[in-house]
């Protein structure tokens, strides 16, 4: 029941926004997303208490209703630890996103409407246990992004919106082919739980795994399909960037893990070398590309490519620790990058520039925003105490567990990207926050408002909660990752 409300609440919020006067839009959006955040925490609590009493079913709170009987499509919902973590992430980012968009003047109503519909798509995606339903929500989440960028964006917004929508639609088309392949080879089932016990023939897996993995991979910026990321992020309005990097890219990671790897373990094993290769390229290429950027949004966009590479690396390494690390990295990167984009948005709103060379000495008049920006940077470069460190460390340890020279080399290279990250993060934060004030017009600028402060505090509390006490998140997700790992190792044992 909780799960159905989780999708219904955003839709209800959207409906109320559509019907109520413009003045109330912001309030309703905030209340709706706030309620959603509380609901997610309730879900977490319920989930943990169920697990504590020893309910070890792979998915909890399952509900199954027939939706389109002619094609065996069911409205099948259910969550495991990984989904709960993703739902929490979504709730945090959406709430913060609504708060930082407080000042949107252009078509306010439509803006918040799309933001909330987008979140409904993401929630639905994370709780679906029916592949068709999952695909349905994946598509639902694309359209609002297109409109958010195309209408409220800046710069070459139409080009970026088109590029993003076409690439993501292309990705989801590949996913559709993969899902159909599984549907027909399993005798007509979309049910994730059924499919996980059904043994899909190995040759079928080998055909359709690339479709699914690359399809979802496009969402999570797999090399060479990452090119929508820089354009999309840089043109998007602040809240849309937060959504894109914080949630949308995680849809892909979650799909790669939950659908591609979980349901086609043999093919996942077979292709794991390629996945690792692509991930390693994304990590290193992304890091070096970031070094060359001068625009703050581009810096964060390229660094997202690099950081999401860790997610794929963790999945590709296929050890238990590495998969857990991938999930942790998804949550951590989601929060961190949302915070980063929020801070960039706040800076841009005041200084009207995102070029690092034009900024400088911002710490003096905007101590709060600058601190937020700095914290996001530190989390990004993996400073202990923040979530980034926990996640990346887990990925590295897990990756090293995979034996073989190729995998070791990939791990080492990925580790070394941390140094590059440190270079670009420290350079960007140092130049824009420290030193003398470069532009005299900046002197009169004000610091963060209440809404911006609240948004930042919400995200930072998430980051620190993971960074300081990583075990709760680890305990939450590890049964889920273990199930995926068991699926993979069962295959290894068979051979």
């Amino acid at each position, binding site marked *: 029941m909780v799960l159905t409300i989780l999708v219904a609440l955003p839709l209800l919020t959207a409906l109320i926004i559509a019907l109520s006067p413009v003045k109330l839009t912001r309030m309703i959006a905030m209340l709706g997303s706030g309620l959603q955040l509380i609901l997610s925490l309730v879900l977490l609590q319920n989930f943990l208490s169920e697990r504590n009493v020893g309910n070890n079913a792979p998915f909890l709170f399952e509900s199954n209703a027939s939706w389109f009987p002619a094609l065996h499509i069911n409205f099948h919902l259910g969550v495991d630890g990984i989904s709960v973590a993703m739902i929490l992430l979504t709730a945090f980012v959406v709430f913060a996103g609504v708060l930082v968009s407080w000042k949107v003047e252009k078509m306010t109503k439509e803006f918040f409407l799309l933001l909330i519909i987008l979140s409904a798509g993401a929630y639905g995606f994370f709780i679906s246990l029916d592949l068709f339903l999952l695909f349905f929500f994946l598509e639902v989440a*694309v359209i609002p992004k297109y409109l958010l960028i195309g209408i409220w964006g800046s710069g070459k917004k139409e080009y970026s919106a088109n590029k993003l929508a076409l690439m993501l639609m292309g990705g989801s*088309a590949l996913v559709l*082919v993969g899902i159909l392949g599984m549907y027909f080879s399993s005798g007509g089932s979309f049910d994730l739980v059924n499919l996980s016990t059904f043994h899909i023939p190995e040759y079928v897996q080998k055909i359709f795994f690339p479709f699914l993995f690359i399809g979802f991979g496009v969402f999570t910026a797999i090399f060479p399909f990452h090119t929508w990321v820089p354009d999309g992020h840089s043109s998007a309005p602040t809240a849309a960037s937060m959504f894109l990097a914080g949630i949308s890219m995680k849809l892909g990671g979650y799909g790669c893990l939950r659908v591609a790897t979980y349901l086609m373990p043999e093919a996942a094993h077979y292709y794991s070398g390629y996945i690792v290769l692509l991930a390693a390229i994304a990590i290193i290429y992304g890091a070096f590309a970031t070094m060359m950027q001068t625009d703050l949004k581009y810096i964060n966009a390229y660094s997202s490519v690099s950081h999401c590479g860790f997610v794929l690396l963790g999945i590709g390494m296929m050890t238990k620790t590495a998969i857990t690390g991938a999930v942790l990295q998804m949550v951590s990167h989601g929060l961190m990058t949302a915070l980063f984009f929020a801070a960039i948005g706040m800076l841009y709103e005041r200084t009207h520039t995102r070029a690092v060379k034009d900024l400088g000495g911002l710490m003096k008049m905007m101590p709060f925003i600058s601190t937020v920006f700095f914290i996001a940077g530190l989390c990004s470069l993996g400073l202990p105490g923040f979530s980034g460190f926990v996640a990346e460390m887990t990925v590295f340890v897990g990756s090293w567990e995979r034996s073989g020279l190729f995998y070791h080399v990939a791990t080492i290279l990925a580790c070394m990207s941390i140094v590059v990250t440190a270079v670009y993060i420290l350079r960007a934060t140092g130049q824009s926050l420290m030193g003398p004030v470069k532009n005299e017009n900046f002197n009169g600028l004000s610091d963060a408002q209440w809404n911006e402060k609240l948004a930042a505090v919400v995200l930072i509390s998430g980051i620190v909660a993971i960074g300081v006490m990583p075990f709760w998140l680890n305990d939450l997700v590890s049964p889920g990752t273990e199930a995926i790992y068991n699926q993979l190792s069962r295959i290894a044992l068979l051979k």
Partner: protein
Amino acid sequence: MTTLIVLSALGLVCLFSEILGFRKLLHPIVLIGLLASFVTNLMDWNNGAHLFNEMVVIDNYSVAFMGLMIGITFIWCLMSPDFFTEPSSETDHFALIVFALIGTMVMVTFANMIMLFLGIEILSIALYILAGSHKTKLSSNEAALKYFLMGSFATGFLLFGIALIYGATGSFNLAAISSMISEHHEQNSVMIVAGILMMMIALAFKVSAAPFHFWAPDVYQGAPTVITAFMSTVVKTAAFAAFYRLFIHTFSASPAIWAPTLMIISGLTILVGNITAVYQTNFKRMLAYSSISHAGYMVLAILAMNQSASSSLMFYATAYSISSITAFAILLLVSHQTGSDEIRSFNGLAKQNPFLSAVTLVAMLSLAGIPPTAGFFAKYYIFSAAIQNGYLGLVLIAILGSLIGVFYYFRIIIALFKSESEEKEIKVNTLFRVLLLVTSLAALALGIAPGMLAGLI
């Protein structure tokens, strides 16, 4: 059968209204007549019959398609009152539309080749005149002439095909032909092969499938917008219903003859329609190409040849007709008040008229096949039916085609929200408001609860 009689009576009433002087009442009379025929049609549900010495067959398949076409015509009559206000041609227009509808009815109930031919001719002759009904406009005349010349060519192919098949099997009856082909191993007979292919060419022309689609953009653009709307919804649905019935009920024993060719036609239609639509700057012409591409998807249902094929075709035709008629109604409003049917005239619509832009959004999403609209399920349903019959490669092309489709449908959506606008406020009267709301809600309802319609036949 009652349906056909009711409609024929309605057509005659339309013609006589001029002489007997009740022209002003004609619009309500036609609407009531359509409703009556809709009801009599529904009474045939699960109540099938073979009539007139196996000339006509009424089954759930025909009832479903007839219901759809009468329903769309009803909506169409509501949205195009302006078209009928020209006093000189009012009665003719009504009568022609009703006769065209009768033609489509015959096209879905035929059990005999002659009836198919009659249906197509009744429909086409009415359409030739309607396409040219803007008598003073050059483009409308051009459209009529082009349609007439090309259409008669296609009819020639159809007759030739029928004649060849009659020569080989000695019958016009579909069941007899079907059993002749399957039992007597006549598959390899040259006459059969040539006959089937010729009929396929004729029908491919009628549904505007590539490479027989060249007439469609010019005719669609030149004809009055309301007629284009009728052609790309009701006429297309009828042509597909006939296409499906002929090929599945009669020629299904020998798919080797026609399936490979039809497969190429389908792939080509999808690619040509979608790719050409990308380059259009005129909304009406873009819809024409989009209608071509949708023909390509619907051909997939004929290729699928399995249980879900007929209901997937029905679902697709419904989803497509509803969204398409919405798009044309919007175009009517916009072009009427801005004086142009370029995509440009949609710029900034969101600010001037949020309601109109919201229904445009739904129509475009549905045509592009994006959830939660009917178009999404329609595409999905038809693709999965085709994959079941082993057409994976073709479905991949179709998916690629729909990706290209996303590009041009989205261009309309972005135009709605562009800030530069031509300050002209677009007004929507109550009738249109209700109409657009109903069609948009129908498109959404079919996308959220597709079970309502899927699996019906």
